């Protein structure tokens, strides 16, 4: 089992495999995202309270989910890289950051857009949006720290420490922000949470989630291949690769 693991962690091997699986991830994610879009915009029934406005859920919820999923993957990869000194893991963490940050931004933007017709303002300090905002800060800090080092090894390891400290903080942040919002008993219940949801409305959500996950797989494969090449400065296997 360990030989398989070691083989996987070998950059040339990973480079090859990622190159082979990326197209599968890519096309399947495209298909599912398009299917989910059509289903969510056309086939799913309108919500009792929010009408057709609730359809934003189908892009907002998957983005929010992916933003958090990516951060955890990033932190785990960073921890693996730090503890076992596996360069590939550091490369994976680096590849996650821009993907996660853009999902976070998307979650914030779609959440804000959704909020306007529902609550009347472009921004509300509700628990979920505020937590997403703080998550965006964590991503930006991680990327800024990485960029500030000239030495790539130092950049890898320093940002790994930051990612681990950050991931420990994420549940604390979530809890504190939730606690903070419940204190003030908002007049309107968070409609973002649960439109009167029926199964027929959930299906496009699941399809979109799956599509986004597969998209993550594609994006990570492509970025990781780039990171591997950047890190393997003078290795002989590069000759075969090109």
């Amino acid at each position, binding site marked *: 089992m360990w030989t398989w693991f070691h083989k996987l962690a070998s950059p040339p091997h990973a480079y090859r495999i990622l190159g082979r699986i990326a197209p599968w991830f890519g096309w399947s994610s495209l298909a599912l995202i398009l299917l989910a879009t059509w289903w969510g915009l056309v086939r799913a029934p309108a919500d009792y309270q929010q009408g057709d406005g609730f359809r934003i859920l189908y892009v907002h919820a998957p983005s929010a989910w992916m933003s958090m999923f990516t951060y955890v993957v990033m932190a785990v990869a960073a921890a693996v890289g*730090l503890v076992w000194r596996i360069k590939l893991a550091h490369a994976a963490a680096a590849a996650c950051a821009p993907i996660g940050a853009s999902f976070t931004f998307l979650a914030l933007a779609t959440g804000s857009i959704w909020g306007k017709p529902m609550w009347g303002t472009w921004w509300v300090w509700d628990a979920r949006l505020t937590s997403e905002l*703080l998550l965006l*800060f*964590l991503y*930006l*800090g991680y990327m*800024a*720290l990485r960029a*500030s*080092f000239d030495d790539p090894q*130092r950049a890898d*390891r*320093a940002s790994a*420490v*930051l990612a*681990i*400290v*950050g991931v*420990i*903080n994420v549940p*604390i*942040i979530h*809890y*504190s*922000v939730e*606690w*903070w919002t419940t*204190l003030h008993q908002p007049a309107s219940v968070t409609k973002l949470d649960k439109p009167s949801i029926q199964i027929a409305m959930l299906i496009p959500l699941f399809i979109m989630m799956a599509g986004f996950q597969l998209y993550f797989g594609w994006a990570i494969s492509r970025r990781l291949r780039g990171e591997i090449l950047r890190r393997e400065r003078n290795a002989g296997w590069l000759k075969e690769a090109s």
Partner: protein
Amino acid sequence: MIRTPIREAAKLVFTRDLTLAWRRWDEVAQPLIFYVVVTTMFPLATTPDMSALREISGGVVWVAALLASLLALEALFRADVEDGTMEQWVLSGQPLGWLLLAKVAAHWVLTGLPLVVMSPIVGTGLGLPYDAWGVLMLSLLLGTGTLSVLGGIGAALTVGVRRGSVLLSLLVLPLAMPLLIFGARAVGMQMDGDSPAGPLQLLAAIFFMALSLGPIAMSAAIRISVEN
């Protein structure tokens, strides 16, 4: 090889930092002055009406304390890394976490503690009532202590980076948001007549967690910054 017991080594570090700072007291005064200046900005920017200011007094004092603490944090490890002392510590075989914690403790005594002591005064300027002083100071005691540890991690990560102070703030502030939430709310609840026990206990829990896990992260970060 004669090895100094870590307790003594840590105490040496602690007293050395305090002594060094005593000779440069103006550096210690700067964050404190910043603290007062920033809290003065809020009434100027909003309203001189005390009853309105009272509403946000706890929050403003807390924000100003966080910012003032951050200002002072950048220099925490810089001097020792630059002159090679830190490298000696890493090589010394002593438990690095304890030495770093001693430094952070000295730093807190020089920056965090004065902020805590000054807080009732600046708070009063914002309409904070006398019966909230205790909660304000206790929450800031725990909060600035935690921030010193978090800031220590950030400072250790950014010690080699040029103009690292803004980066340091960017890294530490999001992590400090829960402190701000619980600390400011504790003061607010006390002013409203509710018991601040809940948030204070959470602040204490976070503080002890930072105290126990922080040194591990700090020594990992220092090793990364110092090793070649």
